[in-house]
């Protein structure tokens, strides 16, 4: 089976899964919204209009205005940028850490493995939200800090996954062959085994983005995320909570945006998982 036909099979399987395609469309739309926010948003996200504060959704402001008269729709479109950036960068960091730890533990075994698995276990028993909250409050809540801290506290799943992959893959003949040809450990880890364990890592990364988006929005909601006036879905929701008795639209729409986004990443991730898992290729197998 050559490379092209394998990709073609995966692609075909993916397209057949309607929910996965829907997830992909949501994610793509989100990327477009974030990139072209200045052109799509009907108003500037920080335009204060004191004559129209807390205006319900209507023809002038599709999703209403907040307590300073800012257009909620525009703020949400700009908020997509934060959500997207935090999701991708945090997961990128988590994936890199997870791959390195997982690869070393799985490949070398012995002491390295014992120490790393122990560390993973400890990280999994910490109520990480406590830790994230504490760290962000201490080092300040810039978007970079938030990305890094979320990344540093969510690599454990990837590490376990990669470790398990390495444990089985390192016994394969091609590894032996590479070693016989004189390849060093680093080359075997990163050029040979890693490539073959990328598929499940990719899936868990996509699912991880969903988790990071949720985390970021809860931090913003608590008021320790990305700080206003920068619009985020979480900090619009905080306004929603403060005005809960008079302005339902401030609570309903940003939450819906988070829900749809997370749902999109989850559907996409699960779809990719199903289409790259050979055990599910019933038709192709026959």
């Amino acid at each position, binding site marked *: 089976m050559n490379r092209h036909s394998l990709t073609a099979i995966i692609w075909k399987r993916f397209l057949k899964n309607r929910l996965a395609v829907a997830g992909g469309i949501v994610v793509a739309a989100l990327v477009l919204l974030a990139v072209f926010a200045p052109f799509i948003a009907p108003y500037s996200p920080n335009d204060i209009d004191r004559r129209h504060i807390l205006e319900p959704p209507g023809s002038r402001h599709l999703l209403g205005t907040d307590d300073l008269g800012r257009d909620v729709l525009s703020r949400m479109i700009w908020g997509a940028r934060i959500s997207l950036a935090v999701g991708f960068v945090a997961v990128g960091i988590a994936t890199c850490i997870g791959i390195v730890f997982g690869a070393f533990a799985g490949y070398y075994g012995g002491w390295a493995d014992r120490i790393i698995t122990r560390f993973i276990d400890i990280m999994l*028993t*910490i109520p990480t939200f406590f830790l994230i*909250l*504490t760290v962000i409050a*201490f080092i300040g809540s810039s978007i970079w800090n938030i990305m890094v801290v979320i990344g540093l506290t969510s690599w454990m799943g990837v590490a376990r996954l990669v470790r398990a992959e390495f444990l089985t893959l390192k016994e394969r003949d091609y590894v032996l062959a590479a070693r016989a040809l004189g390849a060093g450990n680093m080359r075997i880890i990163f050029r040979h085994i890693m490539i073959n364990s990328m598929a499940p890592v990719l899936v868990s990364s996509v699912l991880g983005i969903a988790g990071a988006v949720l985390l970021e929005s809860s931090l913003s909601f*608590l008021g320790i995320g990305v700080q206003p006036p920068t619009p985020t879905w979480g900090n619009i*929701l905080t306004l929603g909570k403060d005005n809960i008795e008079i302005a339902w639209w401030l*609570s309903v729409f940003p939450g819906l945006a988070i829900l749809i986004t*997370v749902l999109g990443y989850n*559907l996409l991730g699960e779809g990719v998982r199903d289409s790259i898992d050979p055990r599910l290729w019933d038709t192709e197998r026959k």
Partner: protein
Amino acid sequence: MLKYLLKRILEMIPTLIGITLISFTIIHLAPGKPTDILADFNPKMTPEARERLEKYYGLDKPVIVQYGMWLKRIVRLDFGESFSSDRRPVMQKIWDKKQPLIDRRLFVTFMINVISMIVILLISIPIGITSATHRNSLYDKIMTTTVFVGFAMPSFWLALLLMMFFGIYLGWLPISGLKSMNYKTLSFAGQVFDRVSHLVLPVFIASFGSLAGDSRYMRSSMLEVIRQDYITVARAKGLPERIVIYRHALRNALLPLITLIGLSIPGLIGGSVILESIFGIPGMGQLLFMSVMTRDYPMIMCILTIGAILTLLGNLLADIGYMLADPRIRAQQ
């Protein structure tokens, strides 16, 4: 069994030291000193007084020495005094003996988490079993969809929506705090009702996060078990389906769920920060949030440590549950 338990409890000690060391290092390596806050609040603070204070807290020593000092104190359950303006001992703030048990912060958080755990089990296990036994039915499909949406639902948003609907639109449930203003004037039954009605929304939201995952997990674990030979045997010898499922299959299917519950405890405890701040509940999460904002070092360390202890104890309980449910593991010990 006893030996195993003892071993597990001893194993918790290095883990706990690891967790507290990580937390301690992070807090103390962060820019700014704890005494900055004290100095900010007190304009009369001279540099000499400040130095004395730093000596007192050992802030002039390397972090690892400070950690050693801290460890020595907490072994005697002395978490120090809060940096906040009331200057009360940290332990007193989370476990105020002057207040009734039910109002002490640690108890409030503990109670909400335990009730939520029970609710999670009571709802997700039956849903998981019935989805598995009625696989691919309309019911199963509705549940699958609900679970998928539930996974993606930000719990704090759901909290806001429910507050708006039940609290404001219908006016059925209170949306903040643990008891009403007129609590003291109520009869005993009224007081119980008042507390319960205050807990309905928080407990629902706290359990919601795990409901989706756990019922899904229960379903797949059940599906795996009923495919096995011994279930076919049980059916073949003419046992009623109810007994096959609830007596024979359930015990094996529950095992993976116990692990999952153990793993979901940190999330539950961590989530109490958001939960308590939305509903204005005076618990540990809310206290942590306030302490973090004011850099109340002793308070933060105390709450992080107690959070870790609770998590470890939860895991231990999960392990014990695992042993009780699985004779194979008991036999190994």
